[in-house]
C-alpha cells in the first residue's frame, strides 16, 4: 500500500519514537532494529497520531514552515517506513 491523501498513517505498535541524546537525533526503535530520523522525519512520525490523514500531515507541515510542495517528500518517507512494516495505513 502507498500513502494517499485521505489515508491515515499510524505508527505500528512495535515501533517507538525515541530521542537518542548521545548522538543528538531521534530514532524509531523496533524489534532488533532502528531507523535514524532527521528532524523533519521525526516531525512527520510525531504527526502520525492515528487521527491525521496524510493530507493533514502535509498541510500541518506546510503551515508550520510556510512552504508548499512537501507532499511528495512526505508520502515517499511514509511509504519507506510502510515497506519496513513500521507504518500502516487506515482510514
Amino acid at each position, binding site marked *: 500500500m502507498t500513502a494517499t491523501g485521505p489515508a491515515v498513517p499510524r505508527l505500528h*505498535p*512495535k515501533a*517507538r519514537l*525515541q*530521542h*537518542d541524546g*548521545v*548522538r543528538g537525533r531521534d*530514532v524509531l*526503535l*523496533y*524489534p*532488533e532494529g*532502528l531507523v535514524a530520523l532527521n528532524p523533519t522525519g521525526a516531525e512527520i512520525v510525531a504527526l502520525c497520531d492515528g487521527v491525521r490523514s496524510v493530507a493533514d500531515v502535509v498541510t500541518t507541515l506546510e503551515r508550520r514552515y510556510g512552504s508548499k510542495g512537501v507532499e511528495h517528500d512526505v508520502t515517499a518517507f511514509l511509504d519507506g517506513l510502510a*515497506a*519496513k*512494516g513500521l507504518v500502516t495505513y487506515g482510514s
Partner: protein
Amino acid sequence: MDPKPLWLLAELTYKCPLQCPYCSNPLDFAGPRFRRELSTAEWCRVFREAKALGVLQLGLSGGEPTLRADLEDLIREARGLGLYTSLITSAYRLTKERLAALRAAGLDHVQISIQGADAELSDAVAGTTSYRDKIAAYQYTRELGFPLTVNVVLHRRNLHQVEALIRLAESLGAERIELANTQFYGWALHNRDALMPTKDQLDDAWRVVQRERARLGTALEIVWVLPDYHEQYPKPCMGGWARAYMTVTPAGEVWPCHAAGRITTLTFDNVRDHPLDWIWEHSDAFTRFRGDAWMPEPCRSCPRKTHDFGGCRCQAFLVAGDAGLTDPVCSLSPHRHLIDAAVAAVESAAGVVEWTYRAAPASRALAPFRDGTGLAAKG
C-alpha cells in the same frame, strides 16, 4: 567518531530449565566464574550507564531470564530510560499473568524460542517437556499485544522442518521468525558433529525460505542467519569487534559478544569494578581488536576488511588457536582446511551422532575444555 554501543545483551542468569545442545552459554556456565549474579540495583546501574553510553536496544536473556523474580523491576528501569526492551525466553512455565505484569512494566517485544515444529521434536531437542508451554505463551503474547519473534536454532535434526516452522509462526501471528543456523561456539561447538547439517539440507531449507519470503512479504519477516561454515567468506561478526554491541554476563563480566568469554588470551573487566564507559573505551577485551590495526594478512590488504572486519575473533581462537588470526571460515585463510574437514566429516558420516545436553553436571564435567584446548584434544 569513536564508536558507541547501540546494543546491550543482559544475560541475567545462566540457570535454565531447557538443555538445548547448541546453547550459546559458556561450557562452564555452572562454574564459579558466573555464580554471583548481579543484584537488581547493580543491573539498574548497568542500564543507566549503558543508556548514557549510547545504547538504545536492550536484550534480556540468559539462561532463562524469567527465573529472575526482579525482571519486572529491571524492565521498568530500562523502559524508563527509553531503552527498547526485548525478552528472549524459552517460555517454560510462563503464565499469562506474568506476561501481563511484564507488559505493564513496559516490556516492548517478546522472543520465544522453539526447538522444532511439533512437540515430539521440540521437546527432544530441548531435553525438557516445554512445547505446550511455548504454544500457550505465543498466544498470550499476541493477546497482550506484544510484537512477537519466534526464535529457532537450525541444525541437522530440525532443518527439514523449516517450512512447518514458518507456517507455525504465521499461524501464531508473529511479526518475525528468526531461523538461525547453528553457529559453532559454546555448547554448539562441543556438539558440532551432531549438529552440523549437510549441504543438501541447507540448500533445501534455503529454497523454502526464498519461496516463503515471496509468499508472505511484510506479513512475516523471515530472518535467515547464514550457516557460516558453508560460506566462502566470514560473517561481519557483531558488525565489527566492539563497534556497536556489548554483553554483560550474569556475574557482571562485560564481553564484546556473548561467546567472547572463552578467549583465554583476553582480560575481561567487570561492572562491579569499573563503569561501563571505562570498559567500553579502555578494557583489554574491547580495545584489542577494535578497528583494523590488529589485522594480519590476508585481511590487512583485503578490500573486504571494511565489510567483514576479519570475521569472528572467537572462531579464530576456537578453531585456529589464535584470536588475532583471520576467521578460518574465510576461503583465503590458511586455516580454512579445518572448516572444510568438519563439513566433509558430516557429509560422509552415517546415522545419528549423539549430543551432550546443556546441563549443570555436564558443564562441571566439561570445565577442563573451556579454554579452547578441548577442541584440539578431541582430535
